[in-house]
């Protein structure tokens, strides 16, 4: 039984060209000019075909701009394909952005009805599910409050509960689990598991490769709008990671005619014993090792490793820049090692850039962009945006007696 079918689907977006100054002031002029200029076409999805069986959980992975979100928009009929055909067999709920179907002025309860009817449900069907939605979201006291007064956590919880309890035949999830705290994420994953067991077909789009591997039966890898690979989760996730490493582009920013003073060879992530590993867990010790080759001696060099999220935001950096010590590099090969006691990053996939420059000189000597990918799996349970290594100690004038330490309930 096929629930979803993509049949040679292509989606083309027309891109407006760069506006000149006059055109920016006068939209009419822009309109006239755009008729003369050739249109730029961007293939967001190109000739993609796949099928999803009933009850199957399909993961879709790929870099940003690979066409994941476009596929989701096509599946949920938010937009239509330029060519090809999509068949959807059953009621489909898409959680593209949590709370996207919410009306801020309406109460939680009214929003449940609103979202339910957006799914194409009848009011009496929604009545039956109302209690389980409210309980799962844990917002019973606030259910008759306008959602604009909800905290962001409550928003996320209610949004997920609605999609997960209105029992669609097909559930589309886009990165929704990236928000919300770890406890709720675990609850969500459990609920998704239940739905899967009950025969719901699931399409899961995420940068959280660990979650994709755990949840999905099959994974599609997209590359620049095309279907690059399809198969067992572990296999495709590995292919994606290798691909991410291979696609590294080396950007060299130095003046023409000059010989390169220093070159980055590799960046690797290792455990304290020096073994290279494909993935690390949050709060694990980590060593980042840069191998380089200096063609000339450099006095006062600065090495940096920048971590970039899958969305392309610079997250943090490791750098020697703030150190007061002068780093003098002699001619010949060498390595520089950054040691971290505990890895502060949350589960996900991170790109890195390695930079080498001279202090007091604005030009980079060498920069390797998106060279190595660091994958972080679920380790220590963390609430919030990153893990903060910590030590703690309890102090009281009167130490607690043994009785106080007996667990409650016994």
């Amino acid at each position, binding site marked *: 039984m096929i629930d979803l079918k993509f049949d040679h689907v292509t989606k083309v977006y027309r891109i407006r060209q760069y506006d000149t100054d006059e055109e920016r002031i006068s939209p009419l002029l822009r309109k006239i000019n755009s008729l003369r200029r050739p249109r730029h076409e961007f293939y967001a999805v190109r000739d993609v075909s796949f099928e999803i069986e009933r009850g199957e959980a399909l993961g879709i992975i790929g870099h940003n701009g690979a066409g994941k979100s476009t596929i989701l928009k096509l599946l949920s009929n938010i*937009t239509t394909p330029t060519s090809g055909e999509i068949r959807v067999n059953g009621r489909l709920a898409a959680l593209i952005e949590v709370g996207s179907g919410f009306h801020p002025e309406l109460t939680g309860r009214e929003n449940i009805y609103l979202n339910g009817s957006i799914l194409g449900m009848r009011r009496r069907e929604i009545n039956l599910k109302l209690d389980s939605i409210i309980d799962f979201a844990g917002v019973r006291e606030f259910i008759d409050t306008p959602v604009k007064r909800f905290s962001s956590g409550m928003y996320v919880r209610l949004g997920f509960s609605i999609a997960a309890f209105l029992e669609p035949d097909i559930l589309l999830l886009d990165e929704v689990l990236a928000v919300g705290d770890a406890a709720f994420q675990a609850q969500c994953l459990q609920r998704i598991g239940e739905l899967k067991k009950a025969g719901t077909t699931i399409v899961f789009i995420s940068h959280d490769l660990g979650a994709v591997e755990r949840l999905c039966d099959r994974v599609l890898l997209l590359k620049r709008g095309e279907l690059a690979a399809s198969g067992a989760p572990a296999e495709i996730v590995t292919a994606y990671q290798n691909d991410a490493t291979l696609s590294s582009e080396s950007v060299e920013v130095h003046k023409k005619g000059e010989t390169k003073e220093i070159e980055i060879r590799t960046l690797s992530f290792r455990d304290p014993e020096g073994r290279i590993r494909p993935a690390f867990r949050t709060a694990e010790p980590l060593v980042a090792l840069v191998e380089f080759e200096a063609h000339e001696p450099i006095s006062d060099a600065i090495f940096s490793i920048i971590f970039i999220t899958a969305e392309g935001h610079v997250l943090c950096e490791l750098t020697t820049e703030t150190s007061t010590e002068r780093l003098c590099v002699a001619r010949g090969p060498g390595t520089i090692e950054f040691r971290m006691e505990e890895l502060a990053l949350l589960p996900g996939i991170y790109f890195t850039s390695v930079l080498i420059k001279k202090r007091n000189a604005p030009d980079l000597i060498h920069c390797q962009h998106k060279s190595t990918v660091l994958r972080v799996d679920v380790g220590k349970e963390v609430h919030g945006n990153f893990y903060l290594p910590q030590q703690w100690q309890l102090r009281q004038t009167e130490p607690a007696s043994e009785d106080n330490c007996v667990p409650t309930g016994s």
Partner: protein
Amino acid sequence: MSTATIHNPTKRMTKIIRPPALSLHGLISGLAELSHYRDLLYTLSLHRVKVRYKQSVLGIGWAVLQPLSLMLIYTLVFSYIARVPSDGMPYAVFAYTALLPWSYFANALTNATTGLVSHSHLVTKVYFPREILPLTYVIAALFDLLIASFVLVGLMFYYRVTLTVNVLYAIPIILVLTGFVTAVSLFLSAIQVRYRDVGVAMPLLLQLWMFATPVVYPLSAVPQRFQSIYVLNPMVGVIESFRRAVLQGMAPDFRSLAVAAGVTMFLLPLAYVYFKRVEATAADII
């Protein structure tokens, strides 16, 4: 912990998503889908009414206040300052009777035109038949019309206007008006997705349109030689007939009402097909 029920495979609807095209088939399948989503239409319309009056002190009173204050202004200007004829009726009730269907038309159109654009957060994130958005504004405005009608009853009682059985003509007249405003709303809200000029031009357009319609003056005041062109405006038949039926106890002006009904029947399917065509890629350009 609740458990998910096993899905019943027999009740499933298969949906096929194809590249957009202008077609008559789209009209039929569109209507079938709209009927499937009728609960959303109901829920959203109800919310539209609720949200509008939720954080306002006067609440539902606004539905009455708008035509009432317009009536006072027009009575002052066109009855006391300029002496505009009113077919022998007291000017206040004469103007108010026409302002009821006119306000319905104007409010529905103003809100419905921006209906898609003002819900871009919904349009780009979830699917439902988009015509529901402009339609809810039409329904909400119809609700306001109902509320404001109670004041008309009061006014007619005050001016001792007697109701006749002809008042029942108001129902088909409002039906024609609803069809017409729906057609125009579908057209304009679809155009608004790409060209925001429509929404900006709307107040001006409505102002001009109102003076081209017998709202503040009677149809009889229009010179005979212009009348054949004048009645091509579908709102002429609607407004004039509504006032005749309700206030003057006469049969509608069938000639101009027939024009309105004809235009509506022609425009409505056309507007719907056009709307469905724009809807298909609205999320990309909104």
